[in-house]
């Protein structure tokens, strides 16, 4: 099968015809890291012209499904596998590849960037309990702003997304009420508000509706110059979302990461910094994106040793050299400690029991 696809690809590209053995690696999953993965693929192809990596950005859910059914060689997900998902895809390794943050964004005429929020206030806004911009609790957080007496219009994602997963994970941590009535997930039963499809749908609704508030990925907010707020962390600081404050948050989480082949279902940057008073400078609504690969690659039907080796080399490259493309695409480069952690994980990968990384 690999040979056939490789041969087919060769017809379309001169490079393949000249390469001694061309290898095709297929991946699928989360859309959040797609621009970065896409960049990796094109850069890696320049270094290794005989390796063609394909990645379909079909969403974390689809990626996990294809990983479980072993129809792709690697998958990407914004959330680690749950216990149940891991049981269906035993011996899956988690490799954090990048870090992203979710920011509250709002449209209140006359109000600049930098409104201050606390977790409890955000949860109550999204629960519909705080429904006016001049609610005493918002005013108490923002004595310097003059907040209008207007109804708050809540905007959320209508499509299932990792962004919603991160946002609702955070709200679960800061509000008991949210945790027991709404919960966390890629989609939830929203108690109030309008749904927009994708970051652009949310941003569109917010820009069209004065006095609205929603949440989007930081990358999207930054690229489109949206108005975002600051969020209070456990240390009591109001943190501006930025690549630095996300990296700081990730560094606090990375000290307690499980081994690559252990259960990652409890791993969450949100959970590890939200109540951590030591986590100074950490922006709490932050998350890893992961590559998911099998520890023993021979379990995949379309895998031979050469492809397995190529996959491991690609993975190694992405967590090392690949990280330098993060900043230009507004992704957070992995902290050194996470890179070391990933090295150990990648060393675990085998083909018919033989370790593949020779480094």
């Amino acid at each position: 099968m690999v040979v056939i696809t490789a041969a087919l690809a060769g017809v379309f590209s001169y490079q393949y015809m000249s390469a001694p053995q061309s290898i095709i690696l297929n991946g699928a999953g989360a859309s959040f890291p797609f621009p970065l993965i896409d960049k990796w693929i094109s850069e890696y192809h320049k270094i290794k012209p005989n390796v063609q990596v394909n990645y379909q950005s079909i969403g974390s859910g689809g990626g996990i499904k294809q990983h479980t059914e072993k129809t792709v060689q690697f998958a990407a997900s914004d959330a680690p596998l749950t216990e149940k998902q891991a049981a269906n895809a035993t011996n899956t390794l988690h490799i954090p590849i990048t870090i992203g943050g979710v920011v509250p964004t709002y449209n209140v005429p006359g109000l600049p960037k930098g409104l201050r929020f606390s977790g409890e206030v955000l949860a109550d806004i999204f629960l519909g309990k705080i429904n006016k911009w001049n609610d005493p609790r918002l005013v108490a957080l923002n004595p310097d702003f003059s907040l209008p007496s207007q109804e708050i219009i809540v905007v959320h994602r209508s499509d299932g997304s990792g962004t919603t997963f991160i946002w609702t994970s955070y709200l679960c941590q800061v509000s008991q009420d949210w945790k027991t009535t709404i919960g966390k997930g890629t989609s939830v039963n929203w108690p109030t508000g309008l749904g927009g499809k994708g970051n652009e749908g949310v941003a569109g609704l917010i820009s069209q509706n004065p006095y609205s508030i929603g949440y989007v990925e930081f990358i999207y907010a930054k690229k489109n110059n949206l108005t975002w707020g600051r969020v209070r962390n456990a240390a009591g600081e109001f943190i501006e979302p930025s690549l630095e404050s996300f990296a700081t948050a990730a560094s606090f989480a990375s000290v307690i990461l499980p081994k690559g082949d252990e259960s990652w279902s409890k791993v969450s940057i949100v959970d590890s910094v939200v109540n951590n008073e030591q986590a100074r400078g950490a922006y709490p609504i932050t998350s890893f994106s992961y590559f998911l690969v099998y520890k023993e690659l021979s379990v995949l039907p379309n895998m031979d040793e050469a492809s397995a080796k190529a996959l491991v080399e690609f993975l190694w490259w992405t967590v090392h050299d690949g990280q330098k493309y993060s900043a230009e695409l507004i992704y957070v480069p992995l902290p050194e400690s996470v890179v070391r952690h990933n090295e150990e994980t990648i060393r675990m990968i085998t083909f018919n029991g033989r370790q593949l990384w020779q480094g």
Partner: protein
Amino acid sequence: MKKPQMLLFFSNGLKPKFLKAFKRPITGDYAFKLITGAFASAILLILGLMAYSLAEGSRPSIQRFGISFLFGTKWDPAISQVFGALPLILGTLTTSAIALLIGVPISIGIGLALSEYMPRELSFVISFLVELLAAIPSVIYGLWGIFTLIPFLRNNVYPYVQSVLGFIPLFSGPIYGGGVLTGGIILAIMIIPIVSAVSRDAFSAVPNTIREAMISLGATKWETVKTVISCARAGVTGAVILGLGRAVGETMAITMVIGNKFQFLPSSLFDAWHTMAAIIANEFTEATYELYSSALIEVGLVLFLVTLAINITARLLLWRSLRFVRGIVMM
């Protein structure tokens, strides 16, 4: 007549051989009949497979929720993992009804103008433009909805509508721009090309003898047109069914403007709502556990059945009106 002569020319003139040669096209005929028959039954096969895989995929959800899936008003993938589709069904039916209410009269008007009133050249140009509209992808309609239609309705139309009709609960409440009415309007715009094109054809297909007969009896243009409408009723009903089919199944454009709010009933026509097609498009890729994706597939199954029910009902109406029209013509 030419072909047998040719065969005769090439054969050696003996009778049995001639007959044998003559038989060949008949065998081909039979084969062709079989092949086309196979193509036609492929439709049945595809439909059957589709129904089967939808039913198979939704089995976990059917087993878990049974009939209550159709009447449930809660959609909670996170905590209770309970799924009910009633609001989605109502949302789809309501927005499609609004689309027909707005779109059909306009489309019939367009069809009549093109077939009965306009000079041939102008009619040709307008027909071409109408068909061009039908070729626009729905995501483009959706984007246009977000960036042009919604701001326009929100700033210029809805406040006025509310100031006049605000005493009716349907037109009260906050105006977001997107919502049920906006969804219906965008669907109306999307079905106009198909409905007007098909009804134009239906009007054009009415034999000229009927028009001539009406005029010779001293009927005015309007009276003639009324008769044309009533003769073309079957075709127009077909056009409306096609439009309804498009409205019910429309996904991309509607999800971009309706607000995607899962609630039993919206507070007004300006409030956000949800539809069956929209929730599938929104949530399927990230439906991370079996029951969840199964519930979404069951929504697909319900959509399939609703479409089927609409088509059958419309077809029955069509037959009835067809008989009625024939009655008139024969009189």
